[in-house]
């Protein structure tokens, strides 16, 4: 296999990896926020259910979660899962990352001084206005470094989709390695992941800078 063919193959895998990355991010960040509300709920039932959810998601390997998500519709309900592979991967990644993001959101929201809520209340802001206009923007700035950490981890975690034989970059690299009996595809894949993460880190740094106009 020529290097250019290898690059083309790995690039198609890279696009798949990026697909997992973007969908997971776009879905898990809002879900994480929602989950963090449940985690901070005054209703003990909701709070405890969410706590268990977060505990399981963080306490078990993502690879196993992916397999459970993918196979359980069949195992539990005998459903045909032929076209469920990609949705299962996105669902698995999303519910896992939402748990981490929920805890990050919670730490950010709980770190907000109570005075911000009081000032907003005195000025007549509704609860949702207070959260969206006053609290959330500050929380986002506050948690951005932790989110960056998770996002960078997510780039690398996309390779776990190999466990469901999804043709992302790592799966393809493994297949080329098997046939070509060389480690080159792994090195190329490592460079691809690094470049991807370099871009991600640059974007996050740019965001941090944009929000550094206040303390």
């Amino acid at each position, binding site marked *: 296999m020529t290097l250019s063919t290898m690059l083309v193959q790995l690039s198609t895998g890279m696009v798949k990896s990026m697909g997992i990355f973007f969908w997971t991010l776009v879905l898990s960040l809002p879900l994480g926020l929602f989950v963090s509300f449940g985690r901070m709920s005054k209703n003990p039932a909701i709070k405890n259910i969410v706590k268990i959810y977060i505990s399981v998601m963080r306490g078990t390997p993502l690879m196993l979660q992916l397999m459970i998500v993918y196979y359980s519709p069949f195992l539990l309900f005998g459903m045909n899962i032929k076209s469920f592979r990609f949705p299962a991967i996105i669902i698995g990644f999303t519910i896992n990352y939402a748990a981490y993001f929920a805890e990050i959101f919670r730490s950010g929201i709980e770190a907000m*001084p109570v*005075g*911000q809520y*009081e*000032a*907003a*209340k*005195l*000025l*007549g*802001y509704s609860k949702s*206005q207070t959260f969206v*206009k*006053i609290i959330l*923007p*500050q929380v986002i*700035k506050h948690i951005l470094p932790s989110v960056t950490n998770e996002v960078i981890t997510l780039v690398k975690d996309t390779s776990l989709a190999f466990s469901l034989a999804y043709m992302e970059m790592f799966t393809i690299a493994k297949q080329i390695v098997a046939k070509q009996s060389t480690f080159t595809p792994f090195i190329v894949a490592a460079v691809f992941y690094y470049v991807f993460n370099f871009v991600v880190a640059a974007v996050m740094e740019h965001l941090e800078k944009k929000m550094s*106009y*206040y*303390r």
Partner: protein
Amino acid sequence: MKILEMNHIRKSFGDLEVIKDISLSVSEGEILSIIGPSGSGKSTILRCATMLETINGGEIIYMGDKAAYTAENGSVVYAKGEKARKINSNFGLVFQNFNLFPHYSVMKNITDAPLHVQKRDKAEVNSQARELLKKMGLLDKADYYPCQLSGGQQQRVSIARALCMNPRILFFDEPTSALDPELTLEILKVIRDLAREHMTMVIVTHEMNFAKEVSNRIIFMEKGVIVEETTPDKMFSSDNERTREFLGKYHDLG
């Protein structure tokens, strides 16, 4: 006309009763100072008046509308919805530590609530905000962020923010205690100016001389009760033993 009436207010934190059956009222144009040692409940009564704390008994009336009252079964009922919003628009509060919104510019801190809560005309709000900033001597800081301002400047912005809502009564919760003496003077000057315009104000403060100078009436609180309530002159020549003792300490310090 009475702007605020608080009758038989009780407030406990757990087993600790911090407000014990306090009644007070504020008339239009009046300036009331509340003084007293730390833990006397003077900040708490302000927080009760501004609905930041819920009372355990008594009633709060703004402009004749009941914001809270004790029902026959003993529980306290608060006004809700539109009525609560109307009542809450009567008052503003200046916090001890400003509580400006750090991600908003000075201008946006002042104009955002009038625009998006009161839904007032943009041009009108902007011109009022600029007017207020001019009065506070901060017109050149309109586009600054709070972190770029001194404590005294931040507190002036927070006063402007409260005033831009056009409240009938403005509460000050120890507005100078987070500031050094020089910056304190800035704030006291602003409050003095407001007094000259007959702004109705309730000021919780440790600045005894200032309270004496600016107030129409002073309340001395201790351990959750009103010890004495009178004019500044009478307060500072009081023959109440506790009042004299308290004011004496300040006198010694001064």
